[in-house]
């Protein structure tokens, strides 16, 4: 209909989808190259790379959960507390002498139930914004975690329980050295991200999650049970936080009161850096992964270069603002008024 407008926008429209999809990966590659030149001996060494993946392992679970919530134009501030509570329940069940397969399942169930609680609260209590409900449960879940554990660390898990967070896949059969192992947590990240990529992109429920974020009224008018989908999303987010707890249990061999403190903010930051829009309906699983990686590499690289952690905070904050500003510009240009 408006041929002139379309011509004017056509170049933009051709480039933008690719930039939107892969721009963040480009940034990640640039960061890796820069870090490699700054720290040529260490940064890309087997040890350091596996280290980065081990460090981001549980954060990547939280970020993935928060990502789905952000796609619905919601927010989940409680993921750090869900993880802590799940971890504490795991620790208590483990200390009570339950067999490992029970211990491993408990944080997943606990996380799922916490998420379900969030989802039901947001929809049934008709909270004005998920921010309120999950801010409340941020305190409730962490408080509960402290209540049941007495606020003290509970340490010492069996190898089976620690496998996902601490396990190593031996690669000597490939002719590699003993130190060149594959962390189990890396394989877990890959599997979980692939499953959720399929879920978000290929299934009807995933499509509806995007539709709700794009226009909740449209979704409702289309006969989509918006509340049901929201409950599913928050439950899955809690479930992923439960996986995070299981990984953390393996990494630290301990349930401790400060577990995951402020990690909800890291998770949100990773989503935003990865291109998820706070306005909802926008963002990719791949982008979140890139966001998590960027934050992990930034921290790791700056540590390697002995940069103070204060500068890390300043840098991560700056990247968040920049990423959102790009999103604002994109909306201005891309959306026809």
């Amino acid at each position: 209909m408006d041929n002139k407008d379309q011509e004017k926008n056509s170049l933009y429209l051709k480039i933008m989808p690719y930039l939107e999809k892969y721009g963040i990966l480009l940034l990640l590659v640039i960061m890796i190259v820069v870090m490699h030149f700054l720290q040529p001996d260490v940064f890309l060494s087997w040890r350091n790379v596996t280290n980065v993946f081990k460090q981001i392992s549980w954060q990547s679970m939280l970020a993935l959960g928060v990502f789905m919530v952000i796609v619905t134009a919601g927010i989940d501030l409680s993921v750090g507390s869900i993880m802590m509570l799940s971890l504490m329940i795991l620790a208590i069940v483990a200390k009570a002498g339950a067999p490992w397969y029970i211990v491993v399942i408990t944080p997943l169930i606990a996380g799922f139930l916490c998420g379900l609680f969030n989802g039901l609260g947001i929809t049934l209590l008709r909270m004005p914004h998920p921010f309120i409900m999950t801010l409340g449960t941020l305190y409730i879940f962490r408080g509960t975690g402290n209540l049941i554990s007495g606020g003290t660390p509970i340490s010492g898990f069996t190898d089976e329980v620690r496998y996902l967070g601490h396990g190593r896949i031996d690669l000597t059969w490939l002719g590699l050295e003993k130190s060149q192992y594959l962390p189990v947590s890396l394989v877990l990240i890959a599997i979980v991200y692939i499953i959720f990529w399929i879920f978000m992109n290929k299934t009807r429920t995933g499509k509806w999650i995007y539709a709700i974020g794009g226009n909740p009224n449209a979704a409702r008018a289309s006969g989509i049970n918006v509340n049901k989908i929201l409950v599913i999303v928050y439950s899955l987010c809690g479930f992923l936080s439960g996986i995070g707890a299981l990984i953390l249990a393996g990494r630290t061999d301990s349930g401790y009161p400060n577990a995951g403190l402020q990690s909800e903010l890291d998770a949100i930051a990773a989503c935003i850096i990865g291109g998820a829009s706070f306005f909802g309906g926008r963002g990719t699983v791949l982008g979140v992964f890139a966001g998590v990686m960027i934050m992990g590499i930034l921290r790791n690289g700056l540590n390697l270069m002995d940069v103070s952690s204060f500068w890390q905070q300043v840098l991560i904050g700056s990247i968040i603002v920049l990423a959102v500003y790009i999103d604002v510009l994109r909306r201005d240009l891309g959306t026809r008024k």
Partner: protein
Amino acid sequence: MSSINQLLLEAKSVTKYFGTITALENVNLKIHAGECLGVVGDNGAGKSTLMKVLSGLYKPSAGSLFFDGKEKILESPKDSQNLGLEMVYQDLALAGNLPIGENIFLGREPTKNLGLLKFLDYKKIKELTDAHLGKLKINVKSADQKVEELSGGQRQAVAIARSTAFNAKVVIMDEPTAALAIKEVGKVLDLINSLKKTGVGVIVISHRMDDIFAVCDRVMALFQGTNFAESELSKTSRDEVIGWIMGKK
């Protein structure tokens, strides 16, 4: 094809209260196959409330709805959709972040099922979208284009395409041209006329007399929640209809 006389939908004595406010009182409405009914009225006259009752979004406090002559009680918009009634909302009810095809089939996507998991059948969505847009002679570059990249008229066309993708019998359009550039209004009105030819009953709510007189066969006016006047379009005039809106006969 249905004859023009076939009664598709009838509302009898519909009354709707919101607390102590009476939004509708004993309102009647009929729509036949292949006919376009214009509904006019001032703000607050009850047009939107009536449409929401017809679509099942609101439950009437009293009165009844007849689809194809059978009385039906609607629990949700899903029920009215199943009976062949579709709404095109004023705010278009499209998700800008999704492509055209996925918007047209939103909520009713063809899927390939694997146990409990329902995977979208993207190929089928694309085929059905192309065929449907072709049938309505709606031109877009690609069915994969995101709706937010479209002009207002194209979006309205997609919204109308969406409403008719599932063999709708009655389509209700709330201010279909209100948000459009003047040059796009004609295309949307053409689309309404071609819908009528396929035997669909169209209800158009509009403030614009130009729209009413371009596509409607009959016009009814609501005033303060009641039936105020109704006429064949050929037996009335713009000035008279404008008078009805203001409550003058």
